[in-house]
């Protein structure tokens, strides 16, 4: 596990895999970036693991990484973490579980099946996360920023 960031090199190989050359000059092909605290502190504490899942680099603060590497890391993280942010709840079918949801997200409108109120969780004091029947996750960063109707709908499940 490497702690210094100065000497690392990060690049994409021709196959689109992320390649890390660590301080000791070793090449790790196909590394993955993982956030340790994706919900509570997404911009710090990032781990880079090799293809076997063994950590090769631990980044406490992304700002301390070289600009080029940082860009690649942020891009890779964004690609790995697909979590639409719900802007508006358009419609929820029925009072009983499971319920069919139609929501407007930052990535467009989508529909999903919610198994029950166990799959709606509070995140922090005002946020919420929904997990649909296939395990996809949807984020509501701040309930207060939703319109009144959407907020009322969500609060039934919280």
């Amino acid at each position, binding site marked *: 596990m490497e702690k210094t960031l100065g000497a690392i090199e990060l690049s994409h190989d021709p196959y689109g895999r992320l390649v890390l050359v660590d301080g000791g000059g070793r090449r790790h092909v196909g590394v993955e970036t*993982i956030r340790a*605290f*994706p*919900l509570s502190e997404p911009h710090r504490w990032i781990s880079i693991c090799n293809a076997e899942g063994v950590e090769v680099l631990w980044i*406490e603060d992304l700002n301390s990484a070289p600009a080029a590497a940082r860009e690649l890391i942020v891009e890779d993280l964004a690609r790995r973490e697909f979590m639409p942010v719900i802007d508006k709840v358009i419609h929820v079918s029925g009072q009983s579980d499971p319920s069919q949801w139609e929501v407007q997200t930052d990535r467009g409108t989508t529909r999903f099946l919610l198994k029950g109120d*166990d799959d709606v969780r509070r995140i922090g004091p005002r946020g919420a996360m929904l997990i649909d029947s296939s395990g996809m996750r949807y984020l509501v960063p701040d309930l207060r920023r939703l319109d009144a109707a959407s907020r009322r709908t969500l609060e039934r499940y919280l």
Partner: protein
Amino acid sequence: MPFILPTLPDAWRRAALAQLEAGEVIHAWFAPDLDAHLRYVEGLVLLTDRRLLSAEATVDGPGADGSTWREWPVDAVGNLRAIERNGLGTLELLGGAGRECFWRYTAARANAAHEFVRRFDALRRGMPFKTAEEHEDGVAPAPEPSPAVSTRTLLRLSRFARPRARLIALGFVLTLATTAAGLIPPYLTVPLVDNVLTPYQSEVKAIKSQEGASAQLKQQQLAKLKETEGPRFARIVALCLGGIAAAAVASWLFGWAQGVVMARVSERVAADLRNATYAHLLKLSLEFFGGKRTGDLISRISSDTDRICNFLSDNLVDFITDALMIVGTAAILVWFDPVLAAATLLPFPLVAWLVYYVRGQLQHGFQRGGRAWAAMTNVLADTIPGIRVVKAFAQEQREVDRFHAANDRVLEANDRVNTVWAFFWPLVLLLNQAGLLMVWAFGAWRVYDFRIEAGVLVAFLLYISRFYTRLESMSRMFSMTQRAAASSQRIFEILDRVPSVPEPTQPIQPNPVRGKIELTGVGFRYGNRPIIENLNLSIEPGEMIGLVGPSGAGKSTLVNLVCRFYDVTEGAVSVDGVDVRRFPVAEYRRHIGVVLQDPFLFYGTIAENIAYGRPEATREEIVAAARAARAHEFIMRLPDGYDSIVGERGQTLSGGERQRISIARAILIDPRILILDEATSSVDTETEREIQEALDNLIRGRTTIAIAHRLSTLRQADRLIVLDRGKIVEVGHHQELVHSSGVYARLHRAQLAMAHDMAE
């Protein structure tokens, strides 16, 4: 330091003191409650500075004259010992030539018997004996269990009502106002009938019945009457009706305000009650939790407080309103006409009793129904968690039949209740009619007798019709009160319980702890069952001790005593030379890390779970602890890393993963003393190796007591302590013990043989 025990049993006091010689001092007494034939007979065994005396109750009762006293000089007594088996105890006096005498007692007196033996031994050794109360300064005595609570527990709720006294007073005033406003309308009908309607009616009748007057004249006279009487008529009618309407509106407004106020009060009282109960519950020792079912404790805090809340906000207010209404109505009736009032109210007690009686019958029915219902749900609670067993043994049909039978009992109980219930409401209506009839009959007679006017009769009828329906709701109150009293009793059972691990009276701060643990003459009994007896052990700071022994040898009890989950019955546990009972409990435990066999994760994120013992830990510290516990990598593989939700409803983790999180938890609080209670026994050998690495990081430099069934996990221990039946039987290194052919060698051989069998 001889002293007379202050509490010699009253019955024996005179007889016992009469036996004493001049200057003889009582050291201890014990009252066996059985005779040699195991019949209940109160006896007395007395220990003085020179003799052991004993007597049994005669037919005249304990302490009566004529009891035969036996005596032994203290020097002639070889030994005194107390043994219990199956709830029956024997105190034996052993002389040089065998058992000289014995006394039998029931389990309830076992502790007293052992205390007596200890005092005897102390006397023999010439040492003053210290009772719990006389224990070293600052150590609180072990508390007695609290006595049973009486049914008047509802009054004890006033402790929680006091902070809300103002709101309650406001609610009471509003209740009074509501009731008063409700009493006004019938009252206003009196002037309406007597001053307006009746006189007018009689004049109309007088005009109509004039003899010899023509129809036209009558019409004229009536028109004239309308003209002259009209304004007065309209004025009084408007006044009365206006008053009635105003009273109705006022009653509604007051009732509304009262409902809001009382609901606020009762919600707050119930919330205070819940907080207080929960806070107190968490202070109680593990001993208390061991004896209670989780569901029972949860329902005490949730449904029992809720029931009290409902009682306070609805039933109690209804009751007060009803009582006020009945008293107010009675007063008004008496004021109108005492004789008619007496006639009206005479059957009231009888009717009240009747309603109460039928209610009581119903109550029994409801209880029977409730029990049948509980039995039915028990079948469900039994079968559904055990569904694998049911299916594996193909017993579905039997379970269905069992449920069917339980359901039939529900049906039968409810049928019976419904019959009584169906009878009940029409009965109340009938009584209501009977009451009205009574008023009509007496009222008519009083009117005939020129005593009252029709208006008063109308008012009486209006008042009395409300009367009997109130009775029904008042009778409902009795059962509600009983239920609420039962609920508050269940809550006060928790609140009255004194923690059996008491806080010291003169606490010493345990900072900093080096980690030297000493157990001197430690004994612990659970009820009357001795678990640990006279155990001595000294553990150096940083030393790792492995506790080994068969199940029930007292290993877990020993660590529970070190953690102060329980307090010792005898002897003392000290850390760095200070009795642990002199440390504040929470302060002391902060220096102890515990890793249990089945680690418990709370609902929350992994980061929160690791930081459970130190919520203020930074993210660096949390990650560092997770790395040291070999948990970092698997945590990073979870979808939300350290933000993943675990615990009930959360991410499912394997036993080994949970264990490593609990190790990280212990690493983070950096304790001086570490307890590993079967930390590796619920995982497979492969995972055990990973956990062992994590544990090695944790153990380094800390005083560690580890319990393990798998002897291999204790390879690093500095010393192995082998326990058997509450006693240390062997001490030493693995190598020494294996060759000593003792308990350890036997356990070791058994495990080797098993590993060998499995390998084949």
